[in-house]
């Protein structure tokens, strides 16, 4: 028996230890070719010369990851259990606040799940071990988010409408095709485009406009579980943001030829994400009984200030310019949410949320936050008219089907640049067919890859083609899995009636 004399234990640096435990696991295959091993990383035209130049954005070893995450989940689930046991839902600001969460559960949670699956793809198919391990961790985080969101909102589902069929509705309901097609677009792209689309654009560029407003809304409206989830996800998200930033820098630093490719992806995914954010915009401005901040203010702070003034000057060093069509988004900030909520007000009979004319107090808040647009373009011509109908005992719903944009799939509602009174309408022809686009941004995206966007599953077209349960509204709603109380008007809705009964106050009559 030979007892080797012990050398004095030399401590590895954190970086060296992390590297030994993660990326050093990689090896160069010799029994199969590199092209066989990594078949998906060449067709997009991205050139990577040295994968080892990927700077690991976070140095978390596996044991540390488990320990940290297990502790976080223990705390989160304790809050969820306590909230459920104490009927915490009764202390929400209003039952109608949950409309925001109905959109979140159906519109965002399935995206978390999609991210889980496709980060797994990257964790197999990137050639370099650094990005593979980073993607692997993010894949784990994303299933965490999907599941903790479901578990967080599960208790509300037991007492409120509109959440019970969120998975089916993500795949079927007209407005859900906006977030679904956005993520399907990213998953069907190559691994590098996905990294820019989701890793950079969704998780970094737009996360404060797409994801965070729901958490802030929760905090302002007494939704303790969702707020706790938000805080619990924060450290994961900050890792994802760091990864997104590293991803774009890595691609840009590897080869100059990558720059124009990445620029087009930034252009495309800014606009794609921004159009999805239109749904968040109406949520921020109209659905929160206690508003956090206006869309305009959020856009100015989180996009114009933090990204256009903060990030893009840094990216200029690599030759990256602010996204094409960004000016259109800036011009729309005074109007975006109003157009979209008006659409939702018109069509909520076919949705899993309820809408109502904003209260007098709420309209005053909107007028204050949108001094140049709300009163003139939205209050007078729309809400005052809708109010007169209500005063006469009616409720206006638009019972036809809207024309959808072939790319973002939002009903054609957005204005011509510089003219809020005219609906913008662009068209493109491809293979002898005619396609409608809502904006220059969506038209540009369509014209880059028409063979992709002609495939889109457009809910309205599908209804006309008879693929959605039948020709009548009740047929389609049944096919959507809608139940009594899911959609329509807030006043007198099932949630409002129950809320009033639980609080011992008389139910509000149709306003």
């Amino acid at each position, binding site marked *: 028996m030979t007892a080797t004399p012990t050398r004095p234990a030399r401590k590895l640096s954190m970086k060296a230890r992390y590297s030994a435990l993660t990326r050093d696991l990689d*090896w160069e295959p010799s029994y199969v070719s590199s092209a066989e091993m990594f078949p998906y990383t060449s067709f997009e035209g991205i050139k990577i010369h040295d994968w080892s130049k990927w700077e690991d954005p976070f140095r978390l070893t596996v*044991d540390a990851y488990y320990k940290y995450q297990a502790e976080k989940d223990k705390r989160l689930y304790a809050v969820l259990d306590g909230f459920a046991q104490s009927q915490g839902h009764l202390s929400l600001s209003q039952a109608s606040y949950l409309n925001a969460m109905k959109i979140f559960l159906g519109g965002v949670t399935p995206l978390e799940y999609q991210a889980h699956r496709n980060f797994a793809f990257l*964790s197999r198919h990137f050639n370099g071990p650094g990005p593979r391990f980073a993607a692997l961790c993010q894949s784990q985080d994303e299933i965490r988010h999907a599941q903790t969101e479901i578990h967080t909102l599960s208790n509300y*589902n037991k007492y409120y409408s509109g959440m019970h069929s969120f998975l089916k509705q993500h795949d079927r309901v007209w407005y859900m095709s906006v977030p679904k*097609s956005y993520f399907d677009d990213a998953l069907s792209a190559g691994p590098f485009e996905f990294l820019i689309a989701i890793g950079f654009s969704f998780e970094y560029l737009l996360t404060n406009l797409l994801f965070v407003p729901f958490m802030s809304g929760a905090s302002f409206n007494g939704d303790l579980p969702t707020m706790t989830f938000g805080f619990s996800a924060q450290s994961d998200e900050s890792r994802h943001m760091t990864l997104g930033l590293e991803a774009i820098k890595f691609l840009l630093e590897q080869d100059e030829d990558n720059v124009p490719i990445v620029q087009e992806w930034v252009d495309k995914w800014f606009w794609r994400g921004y159009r999805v954010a239109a749904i968040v915009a109406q949520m921020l401005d109209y659905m929160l009984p206690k508003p956090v901040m206006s869309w305009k203010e959020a856009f100015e702070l989180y996009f114009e200030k933090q990204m256009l003034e903060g990030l893009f000057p840094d990216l200029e060093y690599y030759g990256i310019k602010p996204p094409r069509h960004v000016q259109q988004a800036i011009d729309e900030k005074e109007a975006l949410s109003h157009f979209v909520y008006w659409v939702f007000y018109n069509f909520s009979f076919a949705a899993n949320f309820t809408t109502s004319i904003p209260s007098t107090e709420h309209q005053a808040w909107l007028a204050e936050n949108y001094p140049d647009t709300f009163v003139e373009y939205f209050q007078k011509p729309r809400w005052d008219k809708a109010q007169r109908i209500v005063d006469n005992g009616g409720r206006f719903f638009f019972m036809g089907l809207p024309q959808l944009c072939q790319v973002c799939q939002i009903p054609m509602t957005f204005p011509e640049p510089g003219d809020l009174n005219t609906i913008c309408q662009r068209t493109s022809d491809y293979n002898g067919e005619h396609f409608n686009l809502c904006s220059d941004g969506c038209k540009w995206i369509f014209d880059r890859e028409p063979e992709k*966007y002609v495939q889109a599953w457009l809910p309205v077209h599908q209804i006309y083609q008879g693929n959605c349960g039948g020709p009548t509204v009740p047929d389609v709603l049944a096919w959507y899995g809608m139940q009594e109380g899911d959609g329509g008007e807030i006043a007198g809705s099932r949630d409002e009636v129950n809320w009033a009964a639980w609080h011992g106050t008389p139910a509000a009559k149709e306003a």
Partner: protein
Amino acid sequence: MQYELRTQVIEPIRKTFTHLVERYGDRPASRYEEGTIGLQATEHFHYRPLWAPDKELYDPAYSRFVLTDPYSFTDPRQLYYAPYVTARSQLHESFGKTLDYLESHNLLARLPEAWRQLLTGLVLPLRHYESGGQMISSNACRFAYGTTIAQCAGYAAFDRVGNAQILSRIGLALGGGTTDALAEAKAAWMDAPALQGLRRYVEQAMVAGDWGVEMVALDLADSLLYAVLYRHLDEVALLGGAGSYSLLAQHLAGWFADQRRWVDALYKAWTADPQTGAANAEHLAAVAAEWLPKAQAAVTQLTAAIDELVPDAGAVGAVAAAADSVTASLAALGVTVSAQSKEESA
């Protein structure tokens, strides 16, 4: 005696989400069910993948193993993220304690030389095998049809990096806090004749293309490796004065027992499917006939070197026994691995 705490009771209007009521009846659902069943979309995909235009984003056709109802398989461990990370946190904490103990008592340095060589030259290199296992499992996580399988594969992928990390930490300890032993192990993985069969095997498994085939190929090799290295040698080590080896091996053996639970359940679901069961069984037989002999040859090559270092180890014999046991458990599912292919491997 209990005191009476009065709480506000409000009758819920439903017990869980509709798709779970439709599947399991009107009862409260578990967190595993709510967080798993039906999560993956199955309809109305907007675009075909640029890199697989003949398939949908999620498509049963990514594998020849098909379940009529993807949720006829559920994880017998009922693992969703929170219990998963909790269980693995405990595994790594417990491993960490073992390693601390071995280090503080200088026990690794006191391993018999043959065992030290065995560990450094033949076991540590398997951290790369584990890494290959991660990539195979990650691929399955992306391409499997249905959330239940994809979720198990996704956690298994992360497990593999954890297993590799366990081996790496042993390597760092053996190297006295340096990466010397890991570098030696990597060189062995790349060039040592005893390991080339296994490296070829895992590289070929990684490019098999069908996620189901890749997972089965990995599992066949796992079944031999884990049985021999972390179970059989565990016994041998105890008898041969290499108790530290046994202390380390228990953690990986424990992991594999857990892994087997869902993999066995998946095989069972595949072969028991009322519509696709027969085809799945035939396919499983074909995959086993192709890959089990290769796995046996590769692992035998590795264990022959073990038997040279520790003459009484009986490692080669243990591989044959493990292969028989794999064949027997497949047979129990109605999957017959053809005798001819078994002879070829002998």
